[in-house]
């Protein structure tokens, strides 16, 4: 499995190297689905409406928490691809300072051609997930 430590940008570069190796989207999806398996078990006490991300055809739960001055995300989904997509975002953004998450440009999404999956009208809700993570980070950053 790839190393998701370091800054957001360093992590993005490693993810890009992993997914960029496939030109065929079926293979890319296979890798994204595998990423879903790297998610830590989602805490059951947070599996409720409050932590659901709206705008997805599948169910997505996302829970933020400040741990030692960084924002830690737990996430889960009942669909494999969505689970992989949220795992990808968690791998890149989790356990970084709130301010860094809030201003992350996530340029890898454009470069990987994920942008077409980002449109708010797409049913996978990737854009809703990004928005929600940044919103949490913004709120937590303000709290200092």
């Amino acid at each position, binding site marked *: 499995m790839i190393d998701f430590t370091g800054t957001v940008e360093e992590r993005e570069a490693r993810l890009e190297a992993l997914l960029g190796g496939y030109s065929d*989207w*079926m293979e890319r*999806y*296979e890798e994204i*689905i595998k990423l879903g398996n790297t998610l830590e078990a989602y805490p059951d006490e947070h599996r409720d409406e409050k932590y659901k991300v709206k705008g997805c*055809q*599948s*169910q997505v739960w996302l829970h933020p928490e400040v741990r030692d001055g960084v924002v830690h995300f737990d996430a889960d989904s*009942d*669909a*494999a*691809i*969505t689970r992989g997509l949220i795992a990808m975002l968690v791998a890149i953004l989790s356990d970084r300072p709130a301010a860094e998450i809030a201003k992350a440009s996530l340029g890898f999404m454009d470069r990987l051609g994920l942008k077409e999956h980002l449109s708010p009208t797409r*049913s*996978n809700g990737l854009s809703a997930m990004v928005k929600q993570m940044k919103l949490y980070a913004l709120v937590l950053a303000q709290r200092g």
Partner: protein
Amino acid sequence: MTAPLSMKALRALFPVLEEKVHGKPLIYLDNAATAQVPTVVQQAIADFYTTYRANVNRGVHYLSQKATDAHEAARERVRRFLNAAASEEVIFTSGTTDSINLVAFTWGRQNLSKGDTVLVSAIEHHANIVPWQIVCEEKGASLLVIPVDDRGVLDQTEFDKLLEKGPKLLALTHVSNALGTINPVKEMIAKAKSRGIVTLLDGAQSVPHLKVDVQDLGCDFLAFSGHKIHGPTGIGILYGRRELLESMPVWKGGGDMISTVTFEKTTWNELPWKFEAGTPNIEGGIGLGAAIEFVESVGLDRIAAREHELLEYATPKLLEIPGLRILGTAPEKVAVLSFVIDGVHPYDTGVLLDQLGIAVRTGHHCAQPVMDRYGVPGTIRASLAFYNTEEEIDALVAGLRRVVGMLK
């Protein structure tokens, strides 16, 4: 008379079916959402734009007359297609949803009051639930629901009992969009009518596939959409019995729907324009007329027979996939295959099939109560049209096997 075109030749009239998606040939199995449009319909719309585009009903000039004639000819074609008694009973709307809303906010507001009930079935599309809920809420009325069995067949014994409760309206789908069930609407309407209950039929999924004769069925209202019958989007029809339409209050106000306007008192135009405020979707109406002409030229019997053949071919093939369960196994059904696969989310299946060029619908199909009834969050739905082929169904089955392998 020329010989009828073969299915292969008919398919060639739909250029979009030759498209490639993600580098693979498109396999379009989402016809219950939107059916593709043949070149003759595209041409009819293009002719309007290129040779006689103008506003209808008001102009004295040549183009306006020609546009009005074409628009009204389309209305007349719809009338004949449905066997309505008069073209005044055929109202252009933006689609089935708009048609049902029109009835809810005119007839419904006028006739429903506190304690009244509206009878719907457990397999309605949201379009035939929500407008009634809105009006019921406003008036203190409520919904009664005809239950459905595991196959997707309405419980007729319960229906009879619910009729005893004296609902004001029976608002029923002819064919279920989520399950494919064809309801025995003629018998059900007759029972409702014998008790003086007004009847509305949601024909969105039936009019494109079965002969729908409003006088034979005896319904008071029928709603359907252009885009499901190989016509344009944003156009639909409300058929209503003249007597009822005349007694109903107006809904949307504006141009065309008026007779005289003064600041003191405005009087309404006659049918059908009374319900057609503002400039209508002229190209939509003309396109719908052309689509119906096309469907009639192919023949609804032939369309139904071919689609049934494809359904019979696809059903056992799909059932060979381990863990696959079809929802909607009514003996009378259209070519809609709604299914779930153990351990596989419909959304994942849809996304991966799309990568293989296969277009299916996933989710709740705007029929959440149906999904709740079967205890699933959603299904994968392949809905077939006469232009689909056995090879495409084989590709769907092969695609599903590959996708399930990736996801399990």
